[in-house]
């Protein structure tokens, strides 16, 4: 038992119940959860995101603090690591692209181990990288797929993605268990599996558990709950999709309505998504925007080629040696100190 994840778990369960039970009370409450809360959440998300990034844009970045992960440009005989120690903008662009798309810095994760008590080894530990890739790509696919509820007609890229995502077919048809119809989306299952792995990792690895806080567990539980409620609606307790699309289309065309026959589970699903959106700009989830601004990755490591002057350096009043000698030349000669420039009458 750990209060950090228990608090998060209870918070998510309470949020679910608020919407699930609340919307059973009547049409007025459904208006709140189906119209008011989603609009507020989107507004908070956009405004909060802008505010946060604008705050970052004002931050001082006086020095090049690039992490160099390879040979810097040097004498002709040494081959430069052009991506891992970029000295050109192109190198930085490639490095940033690979970082954002492939999470290369997570791939470099190593585990330290002692063998026989004295011999220390570092070994590659790629499971965080694998879990993170699976999680982020599955989440991205799920988000894009959901555009089918927010566009009419549904654009081609959503349709193509749906086809690819539902490539595998599973059909289980027993009297007790019936699953597999409509077509199974891989992304949803991968999302839940990866999120659960990322949670278990925080619980079972002692060092990671020690640094895991409520604000690490809460979004994980929230995303797991959103994904599971979505999977329930699709495969187990079927819902009236057309009524739901009528509601979501009402939201995006600014003609909000609450049609009949929208299930309570859907309101709970949408409420949790709204909470996630509203929570986003105030949380660690802002790494979505932050990754683009990582100062150790998005700058060229060219400190040996270009002089970078701190832009707000106060102009320093300099008194050079030549000026010093001009001030004290006679006195220096009197006591026999060597001078660079001899006075003219003595020359």
């Amino acid at each position: 038992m750990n209060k950090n994840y228990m608090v998060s778990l209870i918070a998510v369960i309470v949020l679910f119940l608020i919407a699930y039970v609340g919307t059973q009370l009547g049409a007025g409450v459904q208006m709140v959860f189906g119209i008011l809360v989603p609009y507020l959440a989107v507004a908070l998300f956009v405004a909060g995101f802008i505010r946060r990034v604008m705050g970052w844009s004002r931050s001082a970045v006086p020095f090049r603090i690039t992490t160099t992960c390879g040979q810097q440009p040097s004498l002709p005989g040494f081959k430069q690591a052009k991506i891992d120690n970029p000295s050109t903008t192109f190198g930085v662009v490639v490095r940033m692209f690979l970082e954002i798309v492939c999470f290369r810095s997570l791939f470099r994760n190593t585990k330290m181990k002692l063998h026989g008590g004295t011999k220390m080894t570092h070994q590659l530990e790629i499971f965080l990288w694998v879990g993170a890739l699976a999680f982020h790509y599955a989440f991205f696919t799920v988000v894009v797929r959901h555009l089918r509820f927010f566009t009419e007609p549904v654009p081609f890229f959503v349709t193509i993605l749906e086809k690819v995502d539902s490539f595998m077919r599973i059909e289980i048809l027993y009297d007790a268990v019936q699953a597999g119809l409509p077509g199974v989306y891989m992304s949803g299952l991968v999302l839940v599996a990866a999120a659960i792995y990322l949670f278990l990792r925080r619980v079972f690895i002692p060092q990671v558990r020690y640094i895991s806080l409520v604000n690490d567990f809460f979004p994980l539980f929230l995303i797991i709950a959103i994904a599971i409620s979505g999977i329930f609606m699709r495969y187990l307790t079927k819902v009236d999709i057309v009524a739901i699309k009528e509601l979501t289309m009402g939201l995006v065309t600014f003609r909000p309505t609450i049609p009949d026959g929208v299930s309570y589970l859907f309101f709970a699903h949408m409420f949790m998504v709204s909470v996630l959106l509203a929570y986003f700009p105030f949380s660690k989830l802002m790494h979505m925007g932050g990754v683009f601004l990582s100062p150790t990755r998005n700058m060229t490591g060219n400190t040996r080629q270009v002089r970078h002057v701190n832009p707000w350096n106060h102009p320093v009043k300099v008194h050079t040696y030549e000026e010093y000698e001009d001030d004290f030349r006679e006195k220096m000669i009197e006591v026999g100190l060597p001078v660079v420039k001899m006075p003219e009458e003595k020359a």
Partner: protein
Amino acid sequence: MKDKNKILAGLAIFIVVITFPFWFNLGKAAPAPELELTEKAKAAKTCVMSKEFMTAEHMQLLDVWRHNVVRGGERMFVNPDGRQFNMSLSNTCLDCHSNKEKFCDRCHDYASVRPYCWDCHIDNPKGE
């Protein structure tokens, strides 16, 4: 800082991308599809199950029907009211709902669903 413009440009792109559903549907009303029932369907009043069940679960029911017919050789479906139906898409479903374009397709297109019924079945077995 000199990077401020780049950050603003990135932020602007992000806002345009995430507000895609709002500007994509701008000025378009997307009302829920209206289904047209054939005279025969209107006369029958109820489907093989209740309307609420059929709206949400018809795909599951059809899948079970196919399974029972193809794998089990079983053709008779008895609904909770005790009425019997032949488990057949072409002969039972399409008997009443012979207007696929105005019945099946309207919701499927709206919800971007592509059922694979029609990979094997022809949609108008009576040739009307």
